[in-house]
């Protein structure tokens, strides 16, 4: 087994995901199967290969800066329109610090 039940719980915690007990066991099995397939990457020699972080192609300079002009922003009302809880122009969340 590449990944233990404890690791599944640890990773779920890192990802801020609450999982049911059934999900913990299901994902442990799934991740082990997938990581088992991924192990084949050990068979390919990548010595001296630069990691590819983005798609690159032959082209002229594209790193142009946009003109520094004022633009109207989205606005508070539109930005908050989809918030589950909002008030006084802010997103509302549960209290973080006790008085």
């Amino acid at each position, binding site marked *: 087994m590449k*990944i233990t039940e404890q*690791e*599944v719980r640890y*990773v*779920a915690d*890192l*990802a*801020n*995901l*609450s*999982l*049911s007990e059934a*999900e913990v066991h*299901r*994902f442990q099995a*799934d*991740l082990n*199967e*997938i*990581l088992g*397939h*991924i*192990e*084949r*990457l050990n*068979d*390919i020699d*990548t010595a001296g*290969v*630069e*990691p*590819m*972080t*983005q*798609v690159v*192609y*032959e*082209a*002229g300079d*594209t790193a*142009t800066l*946009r003109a520094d002009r004022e633009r109207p922003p*989205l606005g508070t009302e*539109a*930005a908050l*329109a*989809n*918030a*589950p*809880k909002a008030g006084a122009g802010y*997103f509302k*969340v*549960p*209290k*973080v610090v006790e008085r």
Partner: protein
Amino acid sequence: MDIASLTIDQVREGLLARRFSAVELTREALDFAEARNPSTNAYLHFSPERALRSAVRVDEKVARGEDPGPLAGVPIAVKDVIVTKGVRTTCGSKLLAQYTPPYDATAVMRLEEAGGVILGKTNCDEFAMGSSNENSAFGPVRNPLAPDRVPGGSSGGSAAAVAQGTAVLALGSDTGGSIRQPASFCGVVGVTPTYGRVSRYGLAAFASSLDHIGTLARTVRDAAVLLGAIAGRDPMDATSAEAPVPNYTHPLDGDVKGMKLGLPLEYLKDLTSETGDLIAKGIETLRKLGCEVRDISLPATDYAVACYYIIATAEASSNLARYDGVRYTFRSESSGTLSDMYRHTRGEGFGAECKRRIMLGTYVLSAGYYDAYYLKAQKVRALIARDFARAFSEVDAIVAPVSPFPAFKLGEKIDDPLAMYLSDIYTITGDLAGIPCMSVPCGKTAQGLPVGMQILARHFDEPSMFRVAYALERAGGVN
């Protein structure tokens, strides 16, 4: 007028000859789509007010004698991972069931500026994660050609709508095959352009180094026209390319004489016999049309699925962090503390496949594993890109299958995630390299299931890709 088989040119001719108005066509197209939709679940919701507003603008232009644009009056479906101002955009997720975006994606604005009429938003796998459209929170899509089978995914609703005739064109998104595979399964044309060719502003991010917006249509020409309308530099997407947008329909004349095509041996190993036969016949057709087809090798292909499912899930785990209960409509009832709000909103809101990918992506990026997984995958990605670069020094385009098999039955693979991932083998390589690639119909199996031929070309060489696809289409696929 047969609404289910309309093309862009037929709509244009009808409008300019005043045989119908854009408003009349839009009303008829909406009625037709709403009546047909229950058999497939291709659309999640319709946008009649917006569609009619667009149609009125087209009619006004026609009345004034102005050019109404290359997509004038054409009914178009938009995958529900692409935002539409004032029209609900769910990404196929319970988390965004009530989300109404405050802005339009650039591709949406451009197709409307070109006269296009958006009928509604199409079903898809949740956050575009899946190969069967069974991961939608709003129910699966049925393949219009075989209702007990999947339409493919993740742009399953877009492919089904075009195949069913409830849209002339559709926008989809492709991160690992999500346009080409459903196009292949539904017997339509699906185009994934060069990375950076179409702005992703307004596309819900899945894996940013792999995400593309692309087009679906019933003909190569129509898919090319839609691409031309939405392509080009956009200041709102720093990854969009400056390269000028050519006229993709000029020339589309079917002449492929002397073109050099590569057939990658690694893509022929695991095909069902019927898929293999149809691809072989399609290649024979291209040979007869004067193409020179030679065997090539893309040796890193065997590592592509492993490479892709590290990079895509790592990026997804980061991109999906924003769905935390603060900004996007859904918040768990169990939100006593901030931490509970995050954990329960995400635990209740995401479906199984999204959670699986967030878990895998978080794991491969976690302390101690980064070099072994993520960095290694980025190096393998470089080798996959190098394979293509080497091949394109010898050939003008590559021809290959899209999927190892035709549309499978609903429920057949949903419990085996690895088998589902492995079925993406022939499409994920194009995304990893960022090259343009498409699916064009290449005949049907004895059971009547469509099989698509994939055509891949150099970065920004969509014209060569369309040239080969059009030649195959004009030769009638292989049927």
